[in-house]
């Protein structure tokens, strides 16, 4: 009865009393029990708390009381988003036992919308990575092929969605961390505009780039999730106020196609992807044309520099953001430290993994006196040039389309020894974070190994309503999003 339902369908069934919230939670918890050991999507499952939440929602429904947008929907939350239940580890040994005394803004929103929070999902340590292989705590596999990575850094949330271990999930996206794992796992992943969703309670990696967003089975669910989590929060100074960019009714608009849709493409960018991806994206564009859209070829001369700019800006911010994990105040403290300098150096040396250390060192270097102008300042200038590329593109079209990633999911270990190769896997997603605009990944095909491929759609800042409608146009004519991997426990 629950198999194959998306979040909205489930919610409707719970609201009407056909399905009880506790049945849905039990169903998800049972699947987790059976499948999570081999997939490794969840780091922590809150079975008792989830059942308690589910029972409370059932009681509301039974009493005829109004219930929220997410009534009874079991949801997974990436483990860099603070929740007072259990630990918030960021996939790091340094925070392995950290229990936040506060909920993130988005967690408050989920709970206020009557969601059921199942547990916390694995990620690359502090969201730094593209494969979830950098988790300091656990391995997560791709449900479509367990020898392959789920993508990252929101690999746990994406794998949980693809394996049916939740009905919707939250991730965070600093350089593609929602869109790329969504693409690798055959689901929908939305990175909202920077400022659309409060970052309060999201453990910072690159503060000017981080944004929380949903991973869902379909565009409609993404619209519903965004509806719940979007909006101004006075605790986050960078969250946009409701006058400047009001949150509109994403859900009721999502089925409306865009008449005379204009899609900007950069042919050279599409050509760079491997053949299966290239072909799937081109086929998607053909379908859009059939639906009445026109393609506009644009130039984005600075797009390629986004990797260089990103890895300077993100690491610079990270080097400062992660300075607080010092063994002094909370988190891991080295038992081998003898004075306060050693508390710092040993706790950090033992607590952080290799990639986190690499990025802290890169960022520290980029901000050092004598190098600041050549790296950090130049990266900010490049960021502005990329912004201009996007502005020019959006002057000619409603949105941009391109692949999410140059390839489908790769094998474990394939890129771990070559960080630069790993960084290149983010080539299509980084610019979206650098410019702050929203981007979505929707399933658009499979390669010959039956690995999912994602189409990336990017639209101007705070035009999520349009972005979701454009995505839904394609989704409503295709069946890729309904396909599920075959799984044995």
């Amino acid at each position, binding site marked *: 009865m629950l198999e194959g339902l998306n979040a909205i369908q489930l919610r409707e069934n719970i609201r009407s009393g056909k399905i009880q919230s506790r049945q849905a939670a039990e169903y998800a918890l049972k699947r987790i029990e059976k499948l999570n050991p081999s997939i490794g999507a969840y780091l922590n499952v809150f079975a008792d708390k989830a059942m308690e939440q589910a029972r409370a929602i059932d009681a509301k429904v039974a009493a005829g009381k109004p219930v929220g947008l997410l009534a009874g929907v079991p949801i997974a939350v990436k483990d860099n988003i603070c929740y007072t239940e259990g630990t918030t580890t960021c996939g790091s040994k340094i925070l392995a036992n950290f229990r*936040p005394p506060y909920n993130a803004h988005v967690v408050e929103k989920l709970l206020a919308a009557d969601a059921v929070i199942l547990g916390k999902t694995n990620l690359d340590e502090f969201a730094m990575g593209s494969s979830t292989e950098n988790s300091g705590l656990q391995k997560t596999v791709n449900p479509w092929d367990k020898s392959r990575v789920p993508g990252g850094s929101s690999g746990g949330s994406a794998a949980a969605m693809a394996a049916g271990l939740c009905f919707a999930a939250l991730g965070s996206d600093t350089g593609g961390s929602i869109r790329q794992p969504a693409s690798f796992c055959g689901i929908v992943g939305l990175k909202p505009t920077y400022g659309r969703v409060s*970052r309060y309670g999201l453990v910072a990696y690159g503060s000017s780039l981080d944004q929380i967003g949903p991973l869902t089975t379909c565009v409609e669910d993404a619209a519903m999730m965004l509806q719940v989590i979007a909006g101004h929060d006075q*605790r986050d*100074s960078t969250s946009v106020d409701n006058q400047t960019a009001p949150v509109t009714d994403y859900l009721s608009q999502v089925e409306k196609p865009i008449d005379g849709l204009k899609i900007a493409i950069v042919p050279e960018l599409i050509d760079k992807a491997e053949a299966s991806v290239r072909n799937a994206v081109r086929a998607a564009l053909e379908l859009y044309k059939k639906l009445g859209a026109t393609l506009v070829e644009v130039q984005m001369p600075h797009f390629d520099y986004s990797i260089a700019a990103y890895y300077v800006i993100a690491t610079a911010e990270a*080097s*400062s953001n992660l*300075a607080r994990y010092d063994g002094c105040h909370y988190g891991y403290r080295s038992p081998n430290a003898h004075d306060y300098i050693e508390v710092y150096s040993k706790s950090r040396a033992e607590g952080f993994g290799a990639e986190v250390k690499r990025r802290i060192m890169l960022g520290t270097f980029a*901000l050092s006196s004598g190098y600041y102008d050549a790296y950090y300042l130049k990266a900010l200038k490049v960021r502005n040039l990329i912004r201009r590329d996007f502005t020019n593109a959006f002057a000619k079209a409603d949105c941009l389309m391109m692949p999410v990633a140059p390839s489908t999911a790769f094998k474990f270990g394939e890129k771990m020894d070559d960080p630069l190769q790993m960084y290149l896997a983010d080539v299509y997603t980084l610019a979206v974070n650098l410019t702050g605009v929203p981007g979505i990944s929707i399933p658009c095909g499979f390669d010959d190994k039956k690995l999912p491929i994602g189409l990336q759609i990017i639209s101007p800042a705070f035009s999520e309503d349009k972005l979701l409608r454009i995505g839904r146009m394609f989704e409503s004519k295709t069946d890729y999003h309904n396909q599920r991997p075959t799984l044995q426990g």
Partner: protein
Amino acid sequence: MAAKVDYKLIVGLEIHVHLATKSKMFCGCELVYGGSPNSRVCPVCLGMPGSLPVMNKQAYEFAVLTATALNCQIARLTKWDRKNYYYPDLPKNYQITQYDLPLSHDGFIEIPLEDGTIKRIGIIRAHLEEDAGKNTHEMGNFSAVDLNRAGAPLLEIVTAPDLNSPAEVRLMAQELQRIVRYLGVSEADMQKGHMRFEPNVNLHIYKEGQTYKTPICEIKNLNSFRAIERSVTYEVQRQLEEFLETGKTMQMGNKRTYGWDDVHQVTVLQREKEESHDYRYFPEPDLVPVELNDIWLEQIKSRLGELPLQKQQRFIGQYGLSHYDAAVLTADKATAQYFEAVVQAGADAKRACNLITQTGQKLANQNNTTVDKLGISPQNMAKLAQMTDKGQISTSAAAQIMAAIVGKDTNPEQIAKAENLLQTSDAGAIEALVNQVLAENADAVKEIVSKGKKAQKAVGFLMGQIIQKSKGQANPKIVSEILNRKLAQLPGQS
């Protein structure tokens, strides 16, 4: 040692003022001093993962107001930066501060010197930042960190090196204290650490037609105005002697840090070389820049009011007060306002000044308050001044009455009557007393008439006798007049 060395003292100040806002700089924690360790903290000022700062608007307005009082250029766009360094009292291991776009710059402060002249000291910049917590080392093998102070709003003010004597450095500090208290932006209590002054001191030594600059020393740990002045005085001597011994001059990187040892009254070397800190400043991505529009700026400026030095000079001109009296009255705003209210209520300015600055201040100190809060209305204080001026009471009776009406605000006339403090100015009655005393003290009269050595003393004695006989109620002015007239009439006087 050389006999006399010609030199000039050069001092600039780095100042931190704690702003008396309701809450901390970037979170909602109440800003109160004291409290058990780590009782006034929240996820934001503890720097917990996922927490974000939000600017305290009141702190920004206080800072702009102060910068305006310091005649600074106010930036219409200001932003926040992170200063990165590791220390246990700094929970995030970076401090949110302002680096290249401070909220204000290029101003000046005018300070009254002891000779009554005014000196202008340049202000290079004033910006906002958050304070750190406090490390304590009183737990044996462990050190403890108290973060109650972490995130408190600090206004950092950097002056130009325009101060040229230890007294000027102290006066500058005192004037700044008076200004921020007038503005109500800080309690500015040095002992409590509300204000911290760090003088940067060196000498320009003129020798054989050449100028030698001694290495700059920064002095820390100063917690009183006296310590400021003495530490600079000490540094002058120390630097002079060091130069004469070693000939060392200012070089890149040889700035040193000294701490003031208040017990031994010496400066103690803390850091030999200015460590080449690389703070890796960069723009704080969690905060948005502050844009100050005309309306907002005008709103802030409207709270400026008359500044203390302006008030002090107006008091000199308007009320004919001395530089000293005007300075005492304007030391705090409430006292100055009280003084003007007393004058308004009909008191002579000079008399009101004397009553307030002498007896009034003494009573205020005893009651641990200010004159305006003694519970004596300006009307009754004015009445007291008028009664004194009219000779109805003596100045010592005025003091007695003032003490009696603290907190009660009784009509002074009532006290004067009840306590028998009214003076008699009835010439007839006084003349009778004079005659009586002259008759009773023939020896003293003889001494006066013969213009003996103790004649002057004898007159005083007679005065005393008469006042005593009147039970203190005879107006001394009239007694003196009558006594002198009588003595002049005695044979042998010319």
